[in-house]
C-alpha cells in the first residue's frame, strides 16, 4: 500500500483534473447523458490521488506537515477541487468545474514552480507558522471563490440585461445566490487575511526575539504585497457592507471580488516567479541578500 501511495505523482491528479475540465468544457458543444457522471468520476479520482499524495508528504517528510510553499499551493488546490466537487454535486446544471478546475490546475502549476523546502521552524515559531499559513490559505481560497462568484454574477447579469435565454450547458446560478456567495467570501477573505497578516507579524517578532532574524522584514516585497492585498480585502468587505442596501451594491461587490482575485493571482505569480527572503531560513535569506538575488527594499 505504502509503495502504491509513494508512486502517486502530481501528474496523476493534475491529469485527472485536466480530463474532468475537458469533459466540463464539452458541455458547451454537445449534450451527453454520461458526461456528468464521467466528469464527477475524474474529479473524485483526482481528489483521491491528491489526498493520498498530501497524506504521504505529511507523514514521510521530517518537518511540520505541509509546511513548504509547494505543499501550501497543493493544499489550496485540494480545497478548491473538493469545493468544486461539492458544488457540482449540489448544482449539477451549473458548469462550476469550468471556472474552478483551471484555477486548481494553475495552483498545481504554481506548486511545481515553488520550493519544496519547508519554511524555517523552531518549537516557538512552529505554532505561529501554522496559524499564519492556515489563515492565508483560507483567505486565498475565499478570494478565489468570491472572485469566481463575482465573475459568474457579471456573466449572468450580462445575459439578463441582454434579455437572452441561458446558453445550452452554461446555466449560471441565480444572481441572488451568487451575491450571497461573493459577499460572504469577501468577509471571510478580509477576516482571515487580517488574522493571517497579524500572525505573520507575531511570527517575525518572535523570530527576532529568538535571534533567528536580525529584523522584521517589513519591506520584503511579499510582505508589502500581502499587506496591500489584506488592506484591499478590508476595503472590499467594508464597501460591500456599506452598499448592501444600494441598487448597485451587488454589482460593485461582484466587480471588487473579481479585482481581488486578479490581485491575488498577480501576487502569487510574482511570488512564484520572483525572488524573496519571505519564508526562507534566516541563513539562506542572508545569503540571498548578500548575493543581491532578493529584492532588497532597503
Amino acid at each position: 500500500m505504502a509503495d502504491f501511495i509513494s508512486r502517486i505523482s502530481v501528474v496523476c491528479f493534475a491529469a485527472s483534473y485536466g480530463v474532468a475540465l475537458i469533459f466540463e468544457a464539452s458541455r458547451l458543444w454537445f449534450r451527453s447523458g454520461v458526461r456528468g457522471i464521467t466528469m464527477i468520476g475524474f474529479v473524485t479520482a483526482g481528489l483521491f490521488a491528491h489526498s493520498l499524495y498530501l497524506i504521504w508528504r505529511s507523514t514521510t517528510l521530517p518537518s511540520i506537515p505541509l509546511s513548504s510553499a509547494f505543499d501550501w499551493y497543493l493544499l489550496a488546490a485540494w480545497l478548491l477541487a473538493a469545493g468544486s466537487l461539492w458544488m457540482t454535486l449540489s448544482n449539477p446544471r451549473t458548469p462550476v468545474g469550468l471556472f474552478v478546475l483551471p484555477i486548481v490546475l494553475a495552483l498545481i502549476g504554481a506548486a511545481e514552480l515553488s520550493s519544496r523546502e519547508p519554511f524555517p521552524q523552531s518549537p516557538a515559531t512552529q505554532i505561529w507558522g501554522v496559524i499564519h499559513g492556515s489563515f492565508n490559505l483560507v483567505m486565498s481560497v475565499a478570494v478565489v471563490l468570491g472572485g469566481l462568484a463575482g465573475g459568474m454574477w457579471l456573466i449572468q447579469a450580462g445575459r439578463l440585461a441582454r434579455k437572452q435565454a441561458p446558453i445550452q450547458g452554461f446555466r449560471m446560478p441565480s444572481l441572488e445566490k451568487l451575491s450571497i456567495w461573493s459577499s460572504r467570501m469577501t468577509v471571510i477573505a478580509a477576516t482571515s487575511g487580517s488574522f493571517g497578516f497579524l500572525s505573520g507579524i507575531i511570527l517575525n517578532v518572535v523570530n527576532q526575539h529568538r535571534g533567528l532574524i536580525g529584523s522584521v522584514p517589513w519591506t520584503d516585497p511579499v510582505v508589502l504585497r500581502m499587506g496591500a492585498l489584506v488592506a484591499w480585502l478590508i476595503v472590499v468587505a467594508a464597501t460591500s457592507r456599506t452598499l448592501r442596501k444600494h441598487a448597485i451594491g451587488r454589482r460593485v461587490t461582484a466587480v471588487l471580488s473579481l479585482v481581488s482575485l486578479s490581485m491575488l493571482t498577480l501576487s502569487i505569480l510574482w511570488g512564484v516567479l520572483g525572488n524573496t527572503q519571505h519564508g526562507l531560513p534566516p541563513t539562506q535569506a542572508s545569503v540571498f541578500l548578500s548575493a543581491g538575488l532578493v529584492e532588497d527594499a532597503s
Partner: protein
Amino acid sequence: MSLTFAGGNHRTVPIELREKLAFSSEQASQALARFQQQFPGSEAVLLSTCNRIELYAADGERSGPPPPDELAMFLAECRGVDPTHVGTALGGEQGTAAVQHLFCVAAGLDSMVLGEPQIVAQVKQAWQLAQQSGTTGPLISELFQAALRAAKRVTNETAVGRERLSIPSIAVADFASGVFERFDDKRVLLIGAGKMAAETLRYLSDAGARNIRIINRSIERAHDLAERLGAQTGDYKNLSHEIVEADLVVSTTGATEPVVSHSLYQEIEGQRQGRPLVILDLAVPRDFDSRISGRPGVWLYSIDDLSQTCDSNRRRRQKELPAALTIVEEETRRFMGELHHRSTVPVIEQLRAGWEETGELELDRLFRKLPKLDENSQREIRQAFERYAAKMLHPPMVSLRSESKAGPPHGLLEALRRLFDLKE
C-alpha cells in the same frame, strides 16, 4: 402479420370535425369493445387528444388488420359522423409508414408545438385503456413499447423538447429564476387580471411563490383571480406602495398609456433599499416605461423580449428535428427488423423440429446397434448431435435475421420451405 392506422390531426382535420370525432375515455372504451366485435382477432389502440384522433390496428395473422379506409369509416361510425364527411380528412398508413408515424407522434414530432411532452403520457394512457378493454395483443403491445422507447431516446438524446415555448414559462424559468434563487420569500405583485397573468402566476406558484398580491382597476376580477390562485388583493390606488414592497411584478393591464412612468419609478426607487426588482411586462401596449429598464437593480422584460426568446427556442427545436427524425428512423428499422424476424419463427421451428426428429431416429438406431454404450456415452453422443444440429441451423438463422432488416424475407423462407419440404 401487419400494422395499420387511420386518423387525422390538427393539420388534416378542421377543428369542427375534430370536435365531432373526439372520444372521451368512456367513448374510447366503448369503441374498442365494438372494434373487438367487428374485427375479431385484430388488436387496436385508440389515441384521441385535442389535436388528433388515431386508431392503430395490428393482426398477427396473414389476413392482416382492417385497411386504413375501413378504420376511418369505423371511427366515423363510432362517433355518429357521416362517413362521406370524413372522406379526405382522415388518412392512414400501413406497415413501416404506420410504425414511423406512431414513433413521430409519441416523440412529439407530429405535434402542433414541436416536441411537446404531454403526448407521451397521452400515448401511454391510450395503450393502457386498450389493455383494460382487452384489445391489445403481443404485436400492438410491442409496437407501443417501441414507440415509448423511441420517444425516450428523442427526449434524452436531442434538445427537441427542451426549449420552453410559452411566454409565461420563459419569463419565470429563464429570467425571473436567473435573478432569484427562491420565490417563497419574495413578494409577487400582479397588476391586472388577464389570462396570461394567471398562467404566469401558476408557473410562479410552481416555483414556490406564496406571497402574491393582485391589484386591478376592477376589484371584482381581482377577487375572482385571487380566490382561484390563493392570492391576496390590494388597492389599485396604492400602486406605488405595492411596487415598493414587491420583488417581482407581473403586469397585464389593458391600459393605453404606461401605468408606471419613468419619473414615478424614480420617485419610489429609493424606498426599495436596493432590492432587485424583476418586472414581467406582459401588456400590449406596455405598462412600464421602457426607460425603467436602465435603472440599477431593475430587470424589465416586455412581451417582445420574451417573444424573441420564444422564437429563438422554436428555431432551436427545429434545428434538432433532423437528429430526432434519425432516431425515429433507427427505431423504426429496429422494430420492423424484429417484426419481420418474428415471421420467420414458424419456419425455423419446423426446420429445427424436423432435424431433431431425424436426429432422434438416427440416435435410436445407433444406440440399438451399440447396446453396450453406458449412459454417459449416450448422453455425450446425444449432446454432440444437438450441437451439430444447432451449428447447422445457425447460418440460415443469421441469413434470415439479416434479410429481415430490409423487409420480410419471403424469398429465403420459400427456399427453405421447398428445400426442406416444410409445410406452409
